[in-house]
């Protein structure tokens, strides 16, 4: 039972701080804000150059080989500076699937390109009408010589408008149980017959899409894992997703922003940071957050020791997203009337406020967090079955 940093850890922290302070400069910050989703590519390439883009990959494939403590230090320092985490679809999600289930050829081709952010990936799981019942998917892939012909549609596809590749679950067999006959396949977004239809979100932004497949021809060698075993592949991916999803460091940063802003929001001559009601709301969130940070650390420590994440990891997604939304809600409360401001680019001096629109966007976009990656209700089904053994 020990959390003290060793001399090596402190040296590592200095190196991280030095790197982030030098490389995440004003130009990079501006670039990230203005270039939308693609702005991340430039940042990820810098991380790649340093060898730090994939903390969770094994070293043999280009991962960092960091200890749990080093990962914790990295996360803390990154979020402290408001630097977004890497886009997960390639570096976290599909990469893990390819490493676990891919052929040597797939590994040799895709992994280096993912590491170098050469390809932008998106996720083709959900379908119009399928919701959280993932296995009900209908997008069909039929064998035709060395290829599959795909027909159907995927929805809620984040950043499909930027994507070079999409990883999909498709139905290759209709005869058995609905979990059977599903196949995991990689599709080039430049393929003929793919159409991307934008969906404007509750946050008034374009992050989501519907992706249509009309007779899209995909080489059979793009199947990852066995044909018909896509459900197994997808489940393994969920386990990876589960462990990294709490985002404690980022929630901590939001709490810091709230505290700073609460000292400047004046109500009846008193800053909101002195308001007992508001203080209690902050305290209730912070207590839960302090606990969640250690729940995340416990998971990291278990994994670093080569173990499979225990029951404590399953609550990361649920508690993490709940706390995310709690902080977003508190930030809205803080902004009072300004929480409703629609334009995102107004001069604060003209508007009379600094973060109202930003709070609105985060709050609105944040609604998705308890829905995606398996809604929190589905997460509870999974935990009760696989962790508590209830059926």
């Amino acid at each position, binding site marked *: *039972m*020990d*959390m*003290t940093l060793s001399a090596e850890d402190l040296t590592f922290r200095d190196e991280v701080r030095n790197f982030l302070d030098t490389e995440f400069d004003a130009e990079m910050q501006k670039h990230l804000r203005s270039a939308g989703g693609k702005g991340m590519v430039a940042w990820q390439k810098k991380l790649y150059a340093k060898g730090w883009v994939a903390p969770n990959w094994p070293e043999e494939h280009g991962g960092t080989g960091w*200890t*749990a*403590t080093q990962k*914790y230090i990295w996360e803390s320092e990154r979020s402290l500076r408001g630097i977004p985490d890497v886009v997960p679809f390639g570096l976290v999600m599909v990469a893990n699937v390819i490493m676990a289930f891919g052929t040597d050829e797939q590994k040799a081709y895709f992994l280096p390109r993912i590491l170098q952010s050469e390809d932008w990936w998106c996720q083709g799981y959900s379908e119009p009408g399928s919701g959280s019942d993932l296995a009900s998917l209908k997008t069909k892939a039929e064998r035709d010589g060395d290829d599959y012909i795909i027909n159907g549609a995927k929805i809620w596809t984040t950043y499909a408008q930027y994507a070079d590749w999409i990883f999909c679950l498709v139905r290759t067999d209709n005869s058995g149980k609905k979990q059977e006959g599903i196949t995991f396949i990689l599709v080039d977004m430049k393929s003929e017959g793919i159409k991307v239809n934008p969906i404007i979100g509750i946050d008034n932004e374009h992050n989501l899409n519907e992706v249509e497949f009309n007779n899209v021809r995909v080489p059979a060698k793009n199947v990852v894992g066995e044909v018909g075993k896509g459900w197994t592949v997808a489940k393994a991916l969920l386990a990876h997703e589960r462990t990294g999803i709490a985002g404690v460091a980022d929630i901590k940063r939001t709490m810091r922003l709230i*505290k700073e802003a*609460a*000292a400047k929001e004046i109500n009846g001559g008193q*800053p909101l*940071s*002195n308001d*007992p009601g508001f*203080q*209690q709301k*902050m*305290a*209730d969130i*912070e*207590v*839960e957050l*302090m*606990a*969640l*940070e*250690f*729940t995340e*650390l*416990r998971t*990291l*420590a278990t994994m670093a020791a080569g173990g499979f994440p225990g*029951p*404590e990891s399953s*609550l990361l997604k*649920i*508690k993490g997203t709940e706390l995310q939304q709690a902080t977003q809600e508190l930030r809205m409360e803080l902004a009072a009337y300004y929480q409703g401001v629609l334009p995102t680019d107004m001069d604060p001096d003209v508007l009379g406020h600094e973060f109202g629109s930003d709070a609105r966007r985060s709050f609105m976009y944040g609604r998705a967090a308890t829905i995606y990656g398996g809604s929190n*209700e589905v997460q*509870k*089904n999974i*935990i*009760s079955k696989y*962790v*508590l*053994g*209830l*059926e």
Partner: protein
Amino acid sequence: MNFDYTEEQQMVRDSIARFVQDDYDWDTRKAIVASEDGMSRQNWQTFAELGWLSIPFSEADGGFGGNIVDLSVVMEEMGKGLVVEPYFPTVVLFGGLVARAGDEAQRSSILERVIGGETLGAFAYVERQSRYALNDCKTSATATADGYVLNGEKVVVFNGENADTLAVLARTSGGQFDDDGLSLFLVDANADGVSKVCYPMMDAQRVANITFDNVKLSSDALLGAEGGAMPVVEDVIRESLVALAAEAVGIMGTLNTKTLEYTKTRQQFGVAIGSFQALQHRMVDTMMAFEQAKSLLFKALCEYKTDPASADTTIHALKILIDRNSKLIYGEAIQMHGGMGITDELDIGHYAKRLMMINATLGDGTFHRTKFIESTYAAA
């Protein structure tokens, strides 16, 4: 970074778990609770022989030299077994005060007896009006030519019924709410002028209201510096809060395990009630509540081990979270056990009552939230 227990800690854990399993089954415990003393002195001797009573004391004082993690292991396991023998009042509170404030003579005479299981101690600090304010103290000790005279009353003294030696917090100077001017005294529970009214609490603790009527104390009854007790008391309370949190975590885990087991076997409408989604999601909530409390306990342990005072904010948070999460856990445990859950016969209610008393000891969630806010947002 590691959250592992050492081999030695694992051995202590196993030995207490084995004791609970072999010698502390529910019927045995019931008989102990119903007995004259409400505790087993034979068990207490066993605790001494197995070295559990020596855990937090330094090797120089004849102890095991354990740290906060060692102590937490003991408390967690005792929580799981709902052990009623007065480990917390005697070893953690009373022993903690003597170990920190006592001079060499006091430490060697008293701690040896605590460790050997020969002394049962208590810390008398609560007064009728004081609730959780430690400094709200009307009990007075007036200096005389050769010592002090003690007057006043302490209430809900844990282990007050069985303790033979008391550590009494009394005012030697200052006003009713002053931090300064508080002193600790070692008082023989059978001394002239000491009288007590004993009663049981819902968690089977035997407590007492103790009155001190012109109790004559020699000058060597003073424990620590005259008027300077508060910092020592605060140190002991800090350790006690972590110890109680560990006990609470042990109990919460046990309640979840028992409830989960029950929902897998209890049949209603032809199926196990654990197959109902309405219950499954709530069982996930209680599992998360337990894991979160355990995580925050780990944080407190790590910080305390490095520097006890650095853990203060986390300890407030821990008390808040345990207050909140234990209510969820014992509430659901009772509810899911249905009619059986509200009987005295079943152990579930007894675990619940111990959690409720832990919450009410040394400040509840509301009290610690105020402290947390003071310490966290004071600068804002």
